[in-house]
């Protein structure tokens, strides 16, 4: 569809991003953006001039009509974790092309997922992403030589920065939220373990039978030292992480992300929801700003894990005022 020339610059831009979805102009469309970058400065300058036509002319020089980013729509109410909720499905999806991670070893073997379809919502307090991709097989298990499907959303901690898309750099950290199918099963059905992977496994005297649950924790080193991989009381399938480059990924001390993944008809639909401003080390988002977002996806049955993944470049993300 064409941009709505009658609106001010900001609103027209947002409409352009949203492809084929018709949206009513909102009353707060003229809010001044919070962040400062080249594009925003131009927008502010145009608004200060008070001439819509002049503003549009400047925009034409800096911005093509073809939509290049997507919009986190303002939503009145709790962001639904359920990806099948109509609040999500009625939104038009923004397509994000993916590429094989082959910058650093270990490389992904093949392009298991070619593109993602993403949507975003915020309610002024929380922001949610809904990511959807095609997958022939549901990989739910984290076990020996078996890997689970997963997806991640990456945001600059400082929304005005565009850190290296390769998981940030020193001084320019990124906030990553990862959802794993195995964690979804943990949340839905209770913690999965050896007995679920190998139902016929016989263990005559596990430590907890001899020492009690609490004293036996020492027999599970990763659990004992608090490794999030090992936790038994998982309440969210999404983990908050920080990174300053490949190999630096570290779980955040304060876990605030949530979400939900649903597999249906050879397709994963996953929501990842986080506070707009999650605090120290997390993306500091706010209504009305422009920032960047990137995605990664793992297909377990293709041996995807860690650096063996499909990833996207930065996509511009506008958070509706």
């Amino acid at each position, binding site marked *: 569809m064409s941009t709505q020339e009658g609106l001010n610059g900001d609103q027209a831009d947002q409409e352009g991003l949203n492809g084929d979805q018709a949206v009513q102009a909102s009353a707060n469309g003229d809010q001044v953006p919070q962040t400062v970058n080249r594009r925003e400065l131009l927008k502010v300058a145009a608004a200060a001039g008070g001439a819509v036509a002049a503003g549009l002319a400047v925009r034409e020089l800096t911005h093509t009509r073809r939509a290049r980013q997507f919009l986190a729509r303002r939503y009145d109410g709790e962001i639904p974790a359920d990806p099948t909720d109509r609040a999500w499905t009625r939104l038009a999806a923004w397509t994000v092309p993916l590429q094989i991670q*082959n910058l*650093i*070893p*270990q*490389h992904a073997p093949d392009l298991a997922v070619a593109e993602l379809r993403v949507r975003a919502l915020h309610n002024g307090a929380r922001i949610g992403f809904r990511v959807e991709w095609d997958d022939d097989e549901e990989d739910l298990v*984290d*076990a*020996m*030589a*078996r*890997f689970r499907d997963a997806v991640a959303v990456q945001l600059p901690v400082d929304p005005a920065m565009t850190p290296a898309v390769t998981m940030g750099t020193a001084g320019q950290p990124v906030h990553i939220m990862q959802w794993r199918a*195995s964690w979804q099963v943990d949340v839905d059905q209770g913690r999965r*373990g*050896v007995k679920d*992977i*190998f139902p016929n*496994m016989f*263990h005559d*005297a*596990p*430590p*907890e039978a001899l020492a009690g649950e609490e004293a*036996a924790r020492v*027999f*599970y*080193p*990763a*659990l*004992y*030292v*608090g*490794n999030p*991989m*090992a936790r038994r009381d998982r309440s969210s399938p999404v983990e908050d992480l920080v990174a300053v480059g*490949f*190999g*630096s*990924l*570290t779980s955040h001390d304060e876990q605030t992300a949530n979400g939900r993944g649903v597999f249906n008809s050879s397709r994963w639909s996953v929501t990842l929801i986080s506070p707009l401003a999650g605090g120290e080390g997390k993306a500091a988002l706010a209504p009305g700003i422009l920032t960047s977002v990137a995605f990664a996806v793992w297909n377990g049955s293709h041996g995807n*894990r*860690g*650096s063996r993944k499909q990833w996207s470049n930065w996509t511009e993300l506008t958070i509706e005022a």
Partner: protein
Amino acid sequence: MAEVFNWQLGREMQYPYQAERPARQIAWIFDTNKCIACQTCTVACKSTWTTGTGQEYMLWNNVETKPYGFFPQGWDVHLLDLIGPSTWNNGTYEGQTVFESAPAGERVNGWLPMATDWSYPNVGEDEPAGAVERGTYINKLPHDTWFSYLARICNHCTYPACLAACPRQAIYKRPEDGIVLVDQERCRGYQECVTACPYKKVMFNNETRVSEKCIACYPKIEQGFQPQCVTSCIGRIRIASFISAPDEVDPKKPIDFLVKVRKVALPLYPQSGTEPNVYYIPPMHAPREYLHQMFGPGVDEAVETYQNIANDPELLGLMMLFGSTERIMHAFNIEDGMAYGYDEDSTELVRVPLREPTFIRKYFDEVHNTYLHNIT
């Protein structure tokens, strides 16, 4: 990739990180000739470290029968297949290591065992390499029909492939003693280390969803004791102590003496390139071709030196000190038919005779009016 020196290969090789040898390196000697595969080491390790749920299949220490035993299935066959033909020229390895042969996009040339590969720890146990004809009397070395036992733990390699493969530096080699550990807090369970280790001594815990491995009983080593698998060995085939850097030799150190002076103990599949720190005295009854493939070009010299042990008081004395103390023996000495083991501060830990005194009883016991089976 950095150029690092691997003394076992006699040359420089490619490794993802710069060489940084620890202040000292823990190392082991296993005498395969004395091993009876009783698995006491396996049980000692298992009952000490891997009794948790998720660790059921884990044998950080295992003893397998060669040539048809392996845990996991075919680990050595896979390794040899991956790195291809390996030739030696005057002690220098001319083939490729697991690092040099890594395909594009990989840090290490490896393979990831499936659950079924970990399901048969006793496969091939006591199976000879061929059929024994009726009437065969084995009276020569090496034997025509043979099997031998290979006790295995993590090699705490100087250039660990597991460490090289971890994309998030969750594996580290301790600078104080060279022990290689998986950081249980940092590991995210990618299993790249399991894929990379040529000896398949990193294992994935299905319950905690991270990888684990032999920790060399570091709480014992820190207090001057040898690991559980060493001190529990009833055949006294093992010793653990520190090995000097490649350009240093101290003939008073047990490991240096066996590896660098007498050269009776050899690394297992040195062609992997990881510079493993468990050294084996090769089984003298196994065919040399097999031993060359397994332990490299030093096999002939090692076997001959070992066979001459009766005329070598130093070697004999040191071998008698195996299994004689739970403490780490930093030095040894032979004097007047006795072998002495010393602590780090030169205090005596233990003394043993080079030859156990023998007493012969009479065949007929007059007191009990009976004949004796065992008279020595």
